[in-house]
């Protein structure tokens, strides 16, 4: 499925070779088609499994309202980076495996009948890492929000920066964050939804800067990865460390919201922050 198909909003069919998945929390074996129907929640323990990007878009938008933008933007390889494989090959493979050109899908959609701009990161695409394209697409999304005065919702899932793009990837933190300030100044609501996992350069830039920060239950959210911290301080981390509930307690997020309530909650927020008079 190329970008042209995705442009029409067609959903990717499930891969028949991969029919079930084990819940990483309780070990329950779950049929993928059941999972899909159940919003990728474990039927046994209600664990929030990672949600594929198109399912996420469907979850958060009115039916058939999503129109993708900037879908034809692809990563360059400015460093001609090669580790065990060239970056260009890794990119190709990611494009093939995910049917996305990059680790974020952006678009315009409706929620409760009102327009909004939505960016959803794709953890399956190179760990949701933020390189030039992710930074550029999100920045364009923010700037479009500014232009049309539409609210923005970003759903993050990322291991951090795209190392293969070196310093360019670091600079996306600056680029996206400074665009968020323009939204702030213009009083355009920005809701940041942090899903499992959101760490590194994404957590330390736009994703922490929502007017309202929402996390899904038990998502790993933090600046440094837990392994890096354990290696640095040479001790084991306490249970629940860097999980959504921990962040709530430490004042970094506004609420932990169950996936089933996510759309309604975002709708509620956008209604309360809207500039129009509410319906009586």
């Amino acid at each position, binding site marked *: 499925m190329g970008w042209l198909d995705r442009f029409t909003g067609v959903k990717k069919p499930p891969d028949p070779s991969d029919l079930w998945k084990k819940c990483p929390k309780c070990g329950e074996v779950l049929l993928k088609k059941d999972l899909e129907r159940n919003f990728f929640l474990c039927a046994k323990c209600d664990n929030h499994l990672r949600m594929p990007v198109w399912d996420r878009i469907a979850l958060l938008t009115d039916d058939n309202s999503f129109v993708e933008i900037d879908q034809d933007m692809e990563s360059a390889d400015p460093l001609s980076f090669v580790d065990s494989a060239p970056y260009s090959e890794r990119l190709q493979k990611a494009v093939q495996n995910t049917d996305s*050109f990059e680790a974020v899908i952006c678009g315009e959609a409706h929620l409760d009948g009102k327009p909004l701009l939505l960016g959803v990161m794709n953890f399956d695409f190179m760990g949701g890492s933020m390189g030039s394209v992710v930074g550029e697409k999100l920045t364009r999304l923010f700037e479009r929000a500014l232009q049309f005065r539409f609210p923005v919702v970003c759903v993050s899932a990322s291991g951090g920066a795209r190392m293969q793009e*070196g310093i360019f990837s*670091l600079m996306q933190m600056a680029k996206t964050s400074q665009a968020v300030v323009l939204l702030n100044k213009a009083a355009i609501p920005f809701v940041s939804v942090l899903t499992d996992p959101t760490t590194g350069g994404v957590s330390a830039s736009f994703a922490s800067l929502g007017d309202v920060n929402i996390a899904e239950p038990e998502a790993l959210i933090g600046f*440094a990865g837990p392994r890096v911290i354990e290696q640095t301080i040479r001790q084991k981390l306490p249970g629940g460390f860097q999980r959504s509930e921990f962040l709530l307690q430490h004042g970094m997020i506004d609420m932990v919201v169950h996936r089933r309530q996510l759309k309604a909650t975002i709708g509620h927020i956008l209604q309360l922050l809207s500039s129009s008079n509410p319906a009586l």
Partner: protein
Amino acid sequence: MTREFDFERPIVELEKRLNDLRALSEDGQIDLSKEIKAIDDKIGIMKAEIFRTLEPWQVIQIARNIDRPSTLDYVKILFEDSFLELHGDRLFGDDPAMVTGFARIGNHLVAVIGHQKGHDTEENLYRNFGMPHPEGYRKALRIMKMAERFRKPVIVFIDTPGAFPGIGAEERGQSEAIARNLCEMSRISVPILCFVIGEGGSGGALAIGIGDKIFMLEYSIYSVITSEGCAAILWKDASRSKEAAGALRIRAQDLLEFGVIDRVLPEPIGGAHRDPAAAAATIKAAILDTLPTLLEVAPDDLLAIRYAKFRGMGRYKIERDADNVE
């Protein structure tokens, strides 16, 4: 006494021999002045050659060298007695890994912000090896906002392995603190000059690195991740950090090519620690060169230009014209 690098060893050997010869010559037994001069010249040429062709991992050694001048070393030279350090974020603590204050340079009153490393173990423990906690970034932000109110330009010195990855840092919102600074620095309506003087370690460096002009000392580095970290993740082998160092393009010259920084400031041969005063003089010249022009830019324009500067960073292509890298 400054320590030497592996790659300096041949020179150091030669210099030792030369000193022996000098001692003999000064004893008056035999006049070796001509030979000494010839050897000295050769050493100079060798040195220049070595430092001209340093590998990235060798530059990293210089950038991280414990003797390399850190913020307060330059502050002392640049601002003499005029520097007044201010402390605290007014929220939680005072972070010794971040130094802030006000000072005078030439005709200018300025705010000063910088990471601070130590030059020995004790000092490094106190300074947490230059790795700030959230309170360090929040202190820096407080001082920048104060600088903005009082219309003082901000001089930033970047020298950190990165923001500290620890329990307290995560509890108090390391992510939030960095993100907030990225936001706010983009809107501080006075000129901001950033100098990468040693290690520019990832988000922990960038969090005080949003400026109108970004300078790097010749042997400093600026990277999205440490070469060790990169090797561990991408090569699954931390020992391959030399390769990672090369691949990441972290030298001043690389960043200049990429258009991410504005100027590379040459260092004395052997590195800034061989002659901190000379390195400081170069920094001072850059400040005094750049500030007057920036001070004439209207605040709104300054912010617009700064926005455009970072807005333009990144390389990508649009599929429909795959050949046109934007």
